[in-house]
Each structure stands twice: as structure tokens, then as C-alpha cells.
């Protein structure tokens, strides 16, 4: 009898637990459905489209083959956009790392008040409109912009310099937007670093620079790699900055996809470009995972 009773209790408890979990699943359902219906299933559609053929007037004809991918790889203009995206992504990451590391180190070494203010100031541009920040460089670098105005006023040049619409201006604009993405993870990582290690190194006779090179720098690497991954992935898929600050030679992969979908109405080819971009992103994440370990990055935060 006793055993039966306890069994019944256990059963109801198990049921209740399951029931509770069921409730939890129920409330997670809307979000899961949202992502699956509006992102994953559409992506499958894009995948199917990438093998189809463009018909008259932008229609999609169901004759399947690899011709879109072939066209992408063999036509040098298209192949160049993906190479250009990778190069620009790489350059932006490198510049962000060089420019952003020392400020991150400085922020982590600061004490309370000033540090809180500086961190908030760093998050502010994070949320400030990307399109306006990109546009602001047009005011600074343009033919009638601030730099040319002063150079001409001081008589250093006669004709305005062409500072806009080239690869350098794209990189400048992207670095401007991506810099907080690099500084914040590095800051968090150095901030969480065990201070006693630094003290130990110093009391054992290592100088400031040696302590930095042998202790702080290696221990900040998870933050560095998190920042690099974020900056690289986001800048490879950048659209606004190359579209606004770049010249015709600076077409990046996101622009190519947009052109094919919204201007040329060649959806099959655009889909192929999108799939190639997605594969590229997956490869980058995979290599980061293999070389550095993504779990290290998450725990580093």
C-alpha cells in the first residue's frame, strides 16, 4: 500500500514536471515558429531557386542545374566581388584590431567613474544610426566636405581631393562602425583577467612591458578572437557602407545579391550568390571554431 502510494506521488510529480516543461515549450513555440517560418523555410526556398533558371521578365523557370554557380565562378566580375568582400573584411578587421586594442586595454585599467562614462560613450555610437554615421563621412570627405574645405582654405591644394568613393573610404567607414564590436569583447576579456597574475609577474621582476607581452596579451586573446570574428563576419556582409562610400570597383557580395533581387530581377542568380555568401560565413565560423574554439569565445565574454 505504502509503496503504491509513493509510486503514485512520484508519478504525479513526474507528470507535473513534464507538464511544466510542456508549458515552457509552448511559450517558446512562437519564437521558434517565427524563425523557422520566416527565415529557415525561406532560406530553403532560396537554396532551391539557386539551381533554377531565370525566365522571361524575371520569372523563375523550374529547370534545375548548376549553371548559376558556374556563371558566378567563371565570370570574373562576380568572382571578384566575393574576393573583394573577403579582402575588405580582412583589412577592416586588421585596422580595428590595431586601432582598438590599446583603448580597450586603457578602459580595462581605469577605475570606476571615468570608466563607466567611457563605456557608455562607446555603446552610444553602437546604437546610433548606421546610415547617418556613414552619411557623416560624406560631409567630412566629400568634394565640398570639411577636409577639402580646410585644405583649400589654407592654400595647400587648388583642386578638391577625391577622398570619397574608393576602397580607402569604404574601409574608413566600416572601421568607424565596427570599432566598438572590437573594443568591447577585448575590454571584457582584459577586465576579467585575474589581477593577481599581473601582480605576481611584476613582483617576480618582470617590467611593465614584459608583463604585458607575457601575461596580459596572451590572456586577452579570447577577446581578440571574439572581436575579430564579429568584425570580420559583419563587414564581409556589409551593404550600406560600400554602397554609399564605395566606387563602382568596390561592389561587395551583399550589394551583388541586392542588385540581382531588386534591380535586375534575376532571382536565381541572386540566390546562388546568397548561398555562396552563406557558405563563406559557415566556413569562417567553422575555421574559427577549429582554430580557436567558439566555446572559448563565449566563456571569454
Amino acid at each position, binding site marked *: 500500500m505504502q509503496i503504491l502510494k509513493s509510486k503514485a506521488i512520484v508519478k504525479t510529480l513526474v507528470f507535473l514536471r513534464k507538464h511544466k516543461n510542456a508549458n515552457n515549450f509552448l511559450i517558446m513555440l512562437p519564437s521558434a515558429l517565427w524563425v523557422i517560418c*520566416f527565415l529557415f523555410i525561406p532560406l530553403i*526556398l532560396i537554396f532551391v531557386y539557386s539551381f533554377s533558371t531565370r525566365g522571361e521578365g524575371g520569372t523563375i523557370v523550374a529547370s534545375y542545374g548548376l549553371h548559376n554557380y558556374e556563371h558566378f565562378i567563371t565570370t570574373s566580375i562576380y568572382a571578384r566581388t566575393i574576393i573583394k568582400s573577403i579582402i575588405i573584411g580582412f583589412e577592416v578587421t586588421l585596422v580595428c584590431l590595431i586601432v582598438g586594442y590599446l583603448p580597450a586595454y586603457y578602459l580595462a585599467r581605469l577605475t570606476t567613474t571615468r570608466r563607466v562614462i567611457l563605456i557608455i560613450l562607446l555603446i552610444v555610437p553602437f546604437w546610433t*544610426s548606421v546610415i*547617418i554615421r556613414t552619411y557623416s563621412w560624406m560631409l567630412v570627405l566629400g568634394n565640398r566636405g570639411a577636409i577639402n574645405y580646410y585644405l583649400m582654405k589654407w592654400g595647400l591644394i587648388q583642386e578638391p581631393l577625391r577622398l570619397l568613393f574608393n576602397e580607402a573610404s569604404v574601409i574608413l567607414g566600416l572601421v568607424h562602425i565596427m570599432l566598438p564590436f572590437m573594443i568591447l569583447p577585448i575590454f571584457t576579456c582584459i577586465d576579467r583577467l585575474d589581477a593577481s597574475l599581473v601582480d605576481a609577474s611584476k613582483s617576480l621582476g618582470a617590467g611593465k612591458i614584459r608583463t604585458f607581452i607575457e601575461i596580459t596579451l596572451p590572456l586577452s586573446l579570447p577577446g581578440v578572437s571574439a572581436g575579430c570574428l564579429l568584425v570580420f563576419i559583419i563587414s564581409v556582409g556589409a551593404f550600406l557602407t560600400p554602397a*554609399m562610400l564605395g566606387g563602382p570597383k568596390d561592389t561587395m557580395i551583399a550589394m551583388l545579391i541586392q542588385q540581382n533581387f531588386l534591380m535586375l530581377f534575376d532571382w536565381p542568380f541572386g540566390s546562388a550568390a546568397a548561398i555562396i555568401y552563406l557558405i563563406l560565413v559557415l566556413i569562417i565560423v567553422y575555421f574559427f571554431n577549429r582554430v580557436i574554439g567558439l566555446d572559448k569565445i563565449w566563456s571569454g565574454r
Partner: protein
Amino acid sequence: MVRSLAIEMEIQTKMKKFKFNGLLVITALVYLFLFLPVIVVILMSFHPDPIVSFPIPRFTLKWYKIFWEDYALIQSLKNSFVLGICSAVVSGIIGTLAAIGFVRSQFKGKQIFGAIILSPMILSGIITGIALLSFINYLNFPKSFPLQVVGHALLTFPYVFLVVQTQLYGLDRSIEEASMNLGANELETFFYITLPNILPSVIAGMLFGFTISIDEFVATQCWVTPSTETMPIKIFSMLRYEVTPKVNVLGTIIVLVTITLPLVAEKLIARKINVKLSREKKNK
């Protein structure tokens, strides 16, 4: 001997000071780089001429007046706000529910589920844009305002999820159990106990979502219809033809909105944490 040691120490402290200042200078330059262009935009919105020149000869509000009289621009501003509010509400609801379910359940593949929920954040906006566009096209639905809300909710709810989830981990679950023990059912407990406790982070998440929706361009251009053009779309098409000072005015407005809202949101989260800390202190 003693003197040389003293001198050495002095040199060392001087070097320390110098190094400190070097870092400070670099950091200041980086911050200048981050803020200067935006400040130029704000200043130029008060400038009498469209050409950049400083110092400003005199402050004027004439561009604000011209901006105010541009019906299409004001309309796009309204569209953006309505879209931002709608998508913030939708993403607030689904994001909060997802966070509660996610924090309170244990199952295999929880990490994968988390990654799925956050995936709209990681992918380039153009991918989300064209994917939803071709899906809608495949189903033979026209582009419309609800489509924009659906899309923006997709792009913004991961932020709500992240913010609410962080606060939920810090929530003391015993108060919920107390409520249940006192006879409230799950729904009552949720509305009277759980929701009021996590409300600051829900609102903060929705404000973040609103900010992102207001600023979103890349995906939105795939879903937009001529009558529902948002501000970024309008700015982009204006810039294609000419650089007009009206953009400076619009930029100033967007910058103010996108700076204030997240700061309010941060305040909300911070206050909640402060309240919690003071409560803990009292308990001690």
C-alpha cells in the same frame, strides 16, 4: 648610490606617467574618430549654407523649417515610428515568452535552440530580406505593412530575448513558488509576480528593438512599398541624387532618438540591478 636610485625611481615614475598619457591620447583620438563625424552632421543642421565650413557663421533653424514642410519626409518619419512601435510590441511578446521558456526548461539541444533564436542577429540583413521576400512572393502575397512588421520582429526579437534572459537568471524563483503555494495559478503568478519583476528588462529590450527597427535599411529595402517607405530608405534615395541639408536635420533627429532610447533602456536595467543590490544589502 642612494642618489642614483632616487633618480632612477624618478625616471621610472616619469616614464609611467608618460606611458599612461600615451594610452590616454590614443584613446581620446579613437573617441574623437567615433564622434566627430556625427557632431559635424548635427552642427551642419544649424548651418546657414549647405557647404561645410567652421566656425558656423550663424545658427539657423531654416533647414528644420524646410524639413517640416517636406510632406514625404515627415510621412517617412511617421512610417518609421509606427513600424518601430508595432515591431517592438510583437518582438517584446515573442522574445519575452521565448526567454522565460528557455531559462526554465532543460532539454537536449538547448544550445542549438538558442543559436536558432539568435541566428537573425548574425546573418547579413540582405539574406533575411531576400529570403522573406521570395517566400512572400512564392505564396503570392503582396508586399505590405504587416510583412514589414513580421520582418522587423524577426530582426529585433533576439535582442529582447537576450536582455530578458539575463534578468531572468537573476530572478529569485522562491517568490513565484510562494505565490503558487498561496493558491495563485500559473497565469496569475505570471501576471502578478513574474512580469512586474522582469518588466524593466522587457521594456529595455523593446526599446532596443525599436531603435534597431528605426535604423534598419538593408532588409527593409526588400519589403518596402512606396506608401510605407521608412526614414533610412528615404535618406538613401535622397542621397543618390544630391546631398541636401534636409538629411542633416533628419540625421540629427535620428541620432537623438537612437541615443536617448538605449540610454533610457540602460537606466531601466541599471535601476533594477540597483534595487536588487539594495535589497540584498538589507537582507544582510
